[in-house]
C-alpha cells in the first residue's frame, strides 16, 4: 500500500475517533451528575468564596462528629446499626407463641430454609438494603460484624444473555467492623453450610423480586441430602429449637399475580407455601420439638395452616429487616426485647379472598386498539371493592355476619369457609395484631377529652383518649395503644367500615409492675364519611359528613379485638364473636347536630370548601351503571366480579385517555405578570421565610419566564440554576425511604465541614440500610418513625442531598402489589402518621422528604399509565387520607408555623382516565387548597413528557428528568425529549407567551420549588458568593485527552497525506 493511502486511511480513522470522542464527551457532560453518582466522581462543585453564614443552619449531632468538626463515619455507622436494630425489634410481630419464646441463653439451634442464609433484607430498586450486612446466624451466635464477607446483593440483567444475575451492592468492604452483643446461641453450621452451598446454584438475591410466574426457590430435601447426606446427625446437638425462615420478596415494577406461580411447586398462589417449604417445616419438626417460623416478607404470606398446626410453636413476622435488622430479630428470639409490633396488613387465610383481588393485574380495554391513540393509556383496573380494602372488608363483613345483616354470611367471596362466609376461617391474623412476652392491663384514665372548636368555617374536633397501660407480666416490654372507631351505619346508607384505626401511641419500655398513661388524640374528621352525592347548595356536590348517632371507640390488640370490644359494648352476645371481647375497653358517645354538626368537616383545615374533585375517577361517571361497587348493604349481590372486558363508548372518557386535557391559549394579556424585573433580592436571603412572605413575589419577579420554566421542566436530580436570583445548578434529589442512595465518599457537598473524605476507610458505606416500610409501620411507634426520619436527615447532611424521593406512601390495596415493601400499610391512618413523623424528623436536619407516589399506585402491573377507577369516597378515605395526614401534619402546627411535608412525587398511574400528573383536582384543589401543601411536587421519572402544558398547569411543580444535567449548555427547553406533545404543540421558551394561566402556574411552580429548597439544608451552602465550578474528573480528563490526541493525529495524518500527495505529484 502506498504511503498516500496509508495516511489517508489513518486520517479517516482519526476523524472517526475524534468524532466519537466529541460525542462521548457531550454525552458524559449531559449526564454528568448521574455519572458522578455511579462512579463516585465529582465533576462540579458548589463553591462559596465567602464562608460567612454558611453551614450554620443545619448541622449533624455532635456525637457524630470528630473533635475537629469532621464527620465520624464509625459513629455514624454504629448509630445506623443501633437504629436499624431497634426498628427490627420493634417492628417484628409475634403472631403465635406456645411458650417456646424467648429461647434461653446458650440454646443450640438449627436454621432451616434457604432464606435463613440468604434473607430478604430490603426491597428492590428504591429500598434496597445495601452494603455489609449481619446475617441471622451471625446475629444469633457472633459478637462482631463481618462486613468484609457479607455484602448484600442485587439483581441485574445481563443484556447479552438476558439472564438475571446477582451483583453486589457495593464493591467490597475494607472499613471498620463493629462489635455487637448477639443472642448467645450456637447455630448448626452444617445446615448453614448446606444452604450456602445450595445458593451457589440457586443464586438467590436479597433483592430478587416477584414475577408473573413466581418460584420462591426453596431447595428440596433431596437437594439438601445431595450436599450432605449426613445432615440429620447434627439435629440432636442443635435441637433446642428449629427456626424456619420463609421468604417472599417485594420489588418495583413487578407484581405477584393470581395463580402466578411456577407449575409443580405444590402451591396454587405465589404467597402460599410450596411443597418444599412445607417439607422444610416437617424437617424442622424432626429436628426439634420447638419449631419457630419466621416470615421474611413485606406481604401477607398464607400461613393459616401454620397457625392451626400444634407442632408449630411460634410464628414471627419479621418483614424485610434491613442490613443490620437481624440483630433486632435475634433480640426478640433471645428475649432481650419483648415483641411489641402489630401487623400492618391483615393476613387472610387466602389472599384471593380480598375483594380487591378480583380486579388486579393486566386488563386492557376491549376496543383499545381502535380508539386509544396515546401510549400507556390502554390499561385499567376497576377497584370495585369500594372502601372495603384490607381489614376494612374482613372486619366489616364479620360485624354484619354477626348481626345477620347485608347477606354477610353468603358464599360470595368465600375461600376458606366451609359453610357460608366465616371470619375465623377466612382470616389468619388480623390487622394490628401482635403478641408480647409479657402481659398488660389497659384501662381508660378518665373519660376522653373532646375538644371542638370553630374558626370561621373551619371546625376542629378531637378526642384524646388517655390509656393507662400497666405491665402485669414478668419481663419488661412496650405496648402500642391503638384507638379504633365506629361511626353509626344505616343499612343501605353511606358505606362505612365497621372499624377504622384513628390513631395510636406507644409506651416506653415498662418494667414489670410499671404503668404509663399514653394519650392518643384522635382527629374526628377521620371517622367522618365522604358523601359524594351531598348537595352543597352551590352547584357542587360532595363533602364529609358526620352522621348524628352513637359513635364507638375502643382500644384493642388490633382491629378485630377492638371491634369485638365495641360489639361487647353494644350488647352483642360475646358467644357469637370470634375471639375475646371486653366492653370496658370501648367507649361510646352520642354525636348530635348540636354537638358536632353533620357538615362540620365541609371545610378543610385551610378553610377551603370541600366538594367533589375526582368525579372522573368513577367509571360510572362516564358509562353509568356498568360497575357495581361493593356495598355492605348486600355483600352477596355486590361482591365484585372481574371487570376484564370493559369497552370504551364515552367520547369524553376516550378523549381523556388520549391526553386531551388542556388547550393552550395564545392571545391572553399577560402584561400584569412581572418577569425579569430589576432587583437585588437573591435566593440565599430567602432561607426560612414563610411561603406567603411578600419577598417571594419580589424574587419571582426578578426571574425570567424561561428561568421559571427551566425550574419547572427539570426537577431532578439536578435542578437548574437561575442567574437572576443567584441560584446555581445543583444535584439535589435521590432515593429512597430507607436511606440516601449516595455513598458517604460521594457526597454532593464536599465543602461541608463534616464532609467524610474520599479516603476514609468507611467511605464506601451506603446509607440505604434500614428495613422496609411495613416494618416501621408495624412498630406502631411514632417516635421510632420520627427518629428514622431524623437519622436519614443526618445522612442527607453527610451526602449533600436536600430532597429525598421517599418514603413510599401508597396504601396496600392487596398483598400482591410487588411494591408493598416500599409502602407502609393497608391502613391510611397508620401510613399517614408514620410518614408524617418521618418527614418532620427529616426536616429537623433540612431534608425534604417527598413521599411517593401521589397517588393510586395500587399495582405495578402496567404502572406506566394504568387507569384505576374508583369512587371518590374510596379515593379520599383510603389512598388520599394517608397523604392528607402527612401533608397537614396538624400535630406539629403551631401559631406561627404550618408544618407538613414539603415535597412529593406524583404517580405514574392515572386517577380514572386522567393522569395524576395533570389532575388539577388532585394536584391543586385537594393537595394545595384543601390540605395547604406547599413545596416540591415532581412527576415520576420521564412521565408524561407529552403533556407538558397540562402537567405544568395542574399544580405539579416540575418533571423528573433523571440523569439530565448540564443545564444552560446543551439542555434547552426545546429538548427533543419534550418534542412529542399529545396536542401537537411545540415546547419552547415562548410556548406560554399568550397563556396567562400557564404563566401563573409556572410562576407558582417556581415559587413552590424554591420555597422547598429554601427550607432545606441546601441553604447551608448559599450566600452571595455561591457559584459552581467544574472539576476535573478522570472521565473528563479522559475525553478531553482523547479529543486532543485524536484531533492532533487527524491533523497530522491529513498533513502527511497532503504532503505525500504533493510529493507523488512532483515525482
Amino acid at each position, binding site marked *: 500500500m502506498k504511503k498516500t*493511502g496509508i495516511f489517508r486511511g489513518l*486520517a479517516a480513522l482519526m476523524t472517526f475517533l475524534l468524532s466519537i470522542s466529541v460525542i462521548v464527551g457531550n454525552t458524559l457532560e449531559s449526564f454528568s451528575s448521574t455519572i458522578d453518582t455511579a462512579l463516585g466522581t465529582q465533576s462540579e462543585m458548589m463553591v462559596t468564596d465567602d464562608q460567612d453564614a454558611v453551614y450554620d443552619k443545619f448541622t449533624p449531632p455532635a456525637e457524630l462528629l470528630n473533635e475537629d468538626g469532621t464527620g465520624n463515619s464509625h459513629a455514624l455507622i454504629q448509630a445506623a446499626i443501633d437504629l436499624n436494630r431497634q426498628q427490627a425489634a420493634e417492628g417484628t410481630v409475634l403472631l403465635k407463641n406456645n411458650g417456646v419464646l424467648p429461647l434461653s441463653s446458650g440454646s443450640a439451634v438449627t436454621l432451616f430454609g434457604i432464606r435463613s442464609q440468604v434473607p430478604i433484607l430490603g426491597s428492590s430498586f428504591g429500598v434496597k438494603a445495601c452494603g455489609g450486612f449481619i446475617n441471622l446466624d451471625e446475629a444469633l451466635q457472633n459478637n462482631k460484624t463481618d462486613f468484609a464477607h457479607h455484602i448484600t446483593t442485587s439483581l441485574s440483567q445481563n443484556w447479552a444473555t438476558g439472564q438475571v444475575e446477582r451483583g453486589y451492592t457495593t464493591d467490597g468492604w475494607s472499613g471498620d467492623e463493629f462489635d455487637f452483643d448477639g443472642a448467645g446461641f450456637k447455630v448448626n453450621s452444617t445446615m448453614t453450610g448446606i444452604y450456602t452451598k445450595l445458593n451457589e446454584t440457586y443464586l438467590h438475591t436479597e433483592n430478587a423480586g416477584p414475577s408473573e410466574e413466581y418460584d420462591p426457590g426453596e431447595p428440596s430435601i433431596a437437594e439438601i441430602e445431595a450436599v450432605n447426606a449426613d445432615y440429620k446427625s447434627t439435629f440432636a446437638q442443635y435441637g433446642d429449637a428449629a427456626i424456619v425462615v420463609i421468604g417472599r420478596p417485594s420489588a418495583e415494577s413487578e407484581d405477584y399475580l393470581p395463580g402466578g406461580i411456577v407449575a409443580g411447586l405444590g402451591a396454587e398462589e405465589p404467597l402460599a407455601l410450596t411443597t418444599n417449604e412445607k417439607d422444610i417445616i416437617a424437617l424442622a419438626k424432626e429436628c426439634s420439638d420447638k419449631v419457630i417460623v419466621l416470615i421474611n416478607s413485606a406481604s401477607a404470606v398464607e400461613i393459616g395452616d401454620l397457625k392451626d398446626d400444634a407442632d408449630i410453636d411460634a410464628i414471627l413476622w419479621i418483614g424485610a429487616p434491613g442490613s443490620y435488622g437481624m440483630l433486632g430479630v435475634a433480640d426478640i428470639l433471645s428475649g432481650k426485647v419483648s415483641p411489641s409490633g402489630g401487623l400492618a396488613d391483615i393476613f387472610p387465610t387466602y389472599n384471593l379472598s380480598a375483594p380487591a383481588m378480583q380486579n388486579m393485574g393486566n386488563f386492557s380495554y376491549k376496543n383499545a386498539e381502535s380508539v386509544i391513540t*396515546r401510549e400507556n393509556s390502554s390499561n385499567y383496573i376497576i377497584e370495585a371493592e369500594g372502601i372495603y380494602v384490607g381489614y376494612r372488608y374482613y372486619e366489616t363483613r364479620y360485624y354484619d355476619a354477626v348481626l345477620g345483616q347485608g347477606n354477610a354470611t353468603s358464599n360470595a367471596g368465600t375461600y376458606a369457609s366451609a359453610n357460608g362466609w366465616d371470619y375465623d376461617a377466612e382470616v389468619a391474623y388480623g390487622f394490628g395484631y401482635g403478641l408480647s412476652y409479657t402481659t398488660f392491663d389497659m384501662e381508660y384514665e378518665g373519660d376522653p377529652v373532646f375538644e371542638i372548636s370553630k374558626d370561621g368555617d373551619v371546625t376542629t374536633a378531637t378526642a384524646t383518649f388517655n390509656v393507662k397501660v400497666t405491665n402485669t407480666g414478668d419481663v419488661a416490654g412496650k405496648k402500642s395503644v391503638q384507638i379504633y372507631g365506629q361511626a353509626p351505619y344505616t343499612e343501605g346508607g353511606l358505606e362505612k367500615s365497621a372499624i377504622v384505626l384513628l390513631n395510636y401511641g406507644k409506651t416506653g419500655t415498662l418494667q414489670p409492675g410499671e404503668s404509663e398513661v399514653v394519650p392518643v388524640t384522635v382527629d374526628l374528621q377521620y371517622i367522618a364519611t365522604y358523601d359524594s352525592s351531598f348537595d352543597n347548595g352551590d352547584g357542587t356536590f360532595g363533602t364529609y359528613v358526620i352522621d348524628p348517632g352513637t359513635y364507638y371507640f375502643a382500644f384493642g390488640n388490633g382491629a378485630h379485638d377492638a371491634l369485638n370490644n365495641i360489639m361487647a359494648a353494644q350488647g352483642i352476645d360475646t358467644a357469637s364473636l370470634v375471639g375475646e371481647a371486653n366492653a370496658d375497653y370501648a367507649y361510646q358517645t352520642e354525636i348530635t347536630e348540636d354537638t358536632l354538626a353533620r357538615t362540620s368537616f365541609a371545610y378543610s383545615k385551610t378553610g377551603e370548601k370541600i366538594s367533589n374533585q375526582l368525579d372522573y375517577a368513577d367509571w360510572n361517571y362516564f358509562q353509568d351503571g356498568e360497575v357495581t361497587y361493593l356495598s355492605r348493604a348486600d355483600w352477596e349481590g355486590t361482591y365484585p366480579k372481574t371487570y376484564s372486558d370493559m369497552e370504551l363508548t364515552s367520547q369524553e372518557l376516550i378523549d381523556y385517555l388520549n391526553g386531551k386535557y388542556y388547550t393552550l391559549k395564545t392571545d391572553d394579556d399577560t402584561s400584569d405578570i412581572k418577569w425579569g424585573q430589576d432587583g437585588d433580592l437573591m435566593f440565599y436571603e430567602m432561607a426560612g421565610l414563610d411561603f406567603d412572605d411578600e419577598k417571594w413575589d419580589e424574587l419571582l419577579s426578578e426571574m425570567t419566564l424561561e428561568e421559571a420554566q427551566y425550574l419547572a421542566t427539570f426537577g431532578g436530580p439536578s435542578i437548574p440554576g437561575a442567574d437572576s436570583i443567584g441560584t446555581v445548578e445543583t444535584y439535589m434529589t435521590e432515593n429512597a425511604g430507607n436511606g440516601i442512595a449516595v455513598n458517604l465518599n460521594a457526597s454532593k457537598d464536599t465543602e461541608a465541614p463534616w464532609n467524610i473524605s474520599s479516603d476514609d476507610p468507611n467511605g464506601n458505606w451506603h446509607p440505604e440500610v434500614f428495613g422496609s416500610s411495613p416494618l416501621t409501620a408495624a412498630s406502631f411507634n411514632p417516635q421510632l418513625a420520627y427518629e428514622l426520619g431524623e437519622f436519614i436527615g443526618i445522612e442527607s447532611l453527610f451526602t449533600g442531598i436536600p430532597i429525598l424521593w421517599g418514603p413510599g406512601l401508597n396504601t396496600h390495596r392487596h398483598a400482591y402489589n410487588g411494591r408493598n415493601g416500599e409502602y407502609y400499610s393497608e391502613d391510611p391512618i397508620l401510613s399517614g402518621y408514620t410518614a408524617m413523623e418521618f418527614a418532620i424528623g427529616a426536616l429537623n436536619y433540612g431534608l425534604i422528604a417527598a413521599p411517593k407516589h401521589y397517588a393510586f399506585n395500587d399495582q405495578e402491573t402496567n404502572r*406506566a399509565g394504568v387507569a384505576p377507577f374508583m369512587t371518590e369516597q374510596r379515593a379520599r378515605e383510603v389512598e388520599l387520607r394517608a397523604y392528607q395526614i402527612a401533608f397537614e401534619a396538624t400535630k406539629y402546627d403551631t401559631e406561627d408555623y404550618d408544618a407538613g411535608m414539603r415535597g412529593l412525587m406524583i404517580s405514574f398511574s392515572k386517577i380514572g382516565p386522567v393522569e395524576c400528573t395533570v389532575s388539577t383536582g388532585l394536584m391543586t384543589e385537594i393537595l394545595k387548597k384543601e390540605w395547604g401543601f406547599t413545596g416540591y411536587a415532581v412527576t415520576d421519572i420521564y412521565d408524561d413528557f407529552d403533556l407538558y402544558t397540562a402537567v405544568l398547569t395542574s399544580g405539579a411543580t416540575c418533571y423528573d428528568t433523571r440523569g439530565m444535567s448540564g443545564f444552560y449548555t446543551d439542555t434547552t427547553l426545546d429538548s*427533543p425529549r419534550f*418534542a*412529542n406533545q399529545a396536542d401537537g404543540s411545540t415546547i419552547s421558551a415562548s410556548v406560554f407567551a399568550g397563556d396567562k394561566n400557564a404563566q401563573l402556574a409556572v410562576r407558582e411552580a417556581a415559587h413552590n420549588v424554591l420555597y422547598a429548597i429554601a427550607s432545606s439544608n441546601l441553604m447551608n451552602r448559599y450566600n452571595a458568593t455561591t457559584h459552581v465550578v467544574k472539576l476535573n474528573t478522570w472521565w473528563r480528563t479522559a475525553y478531553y485527552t482523547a479529543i486532543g490526541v485524536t484531533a492532533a493525529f487527524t491533523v497530522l495524518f491529513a498533513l502527511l497525506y497532503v504532503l505525500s500527495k504533493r510529493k507523488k505529484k512532483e515525482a
Partner: protein
Amino acid sequence: MADFMKKQSIGSYFNCIAAVLGIVGIVAAVICSNMTVTYALGNMGTIALLGACGIILAVAAICLPNKFGNHDILGTLAVLGAIAVYTAAFGQVLSERILLIAGLFSYDSVNTVGWQVFYVTVVSIAAFLVADIILIIGAFSRSVKEN
C-alpha cells in the same frame, strides 16, 4: 455505465456499501421513531439530514476519484466528511435513546415496547457505525483501478 463499473476498485465498493448503510441507518431511525408516539425521535429531522449528508458524501467519494484519481483531496474530504456526519447521526440517535436504554437495563426492564424500540434503534446505530468502519477501510484502499 459499464465502463464506470469496470473502473471501480475496492475502495469504491466500500464507499458504496457505506452509502447503502447510511440509508439503512436512516430507515431504521425512521422506523424506531414511528413505532410509538412515546418513543418518537424528537431530532429525527437532524438525524435524517446528517444521514443524507453522509450518503451524498459517500457517493461523492465514489465519483470524485473517477475524475481526479485515487486518493484525491476532494474525495478524501468527502470520506472524512461522511465519517464525521455518520458519527454525528449515530450520536444524535444515541443521545435520544440513552434514557430509554438506561431505563431498560435498570428500573424499566419490563417495558416490552421499549425493548422493541431499542432493538430497531440498535440497527440504526449499528448501520451508521459499520458505515464509518467501512469508510475507514475504504480510505486505505484504491477507489478506481489504475492502468
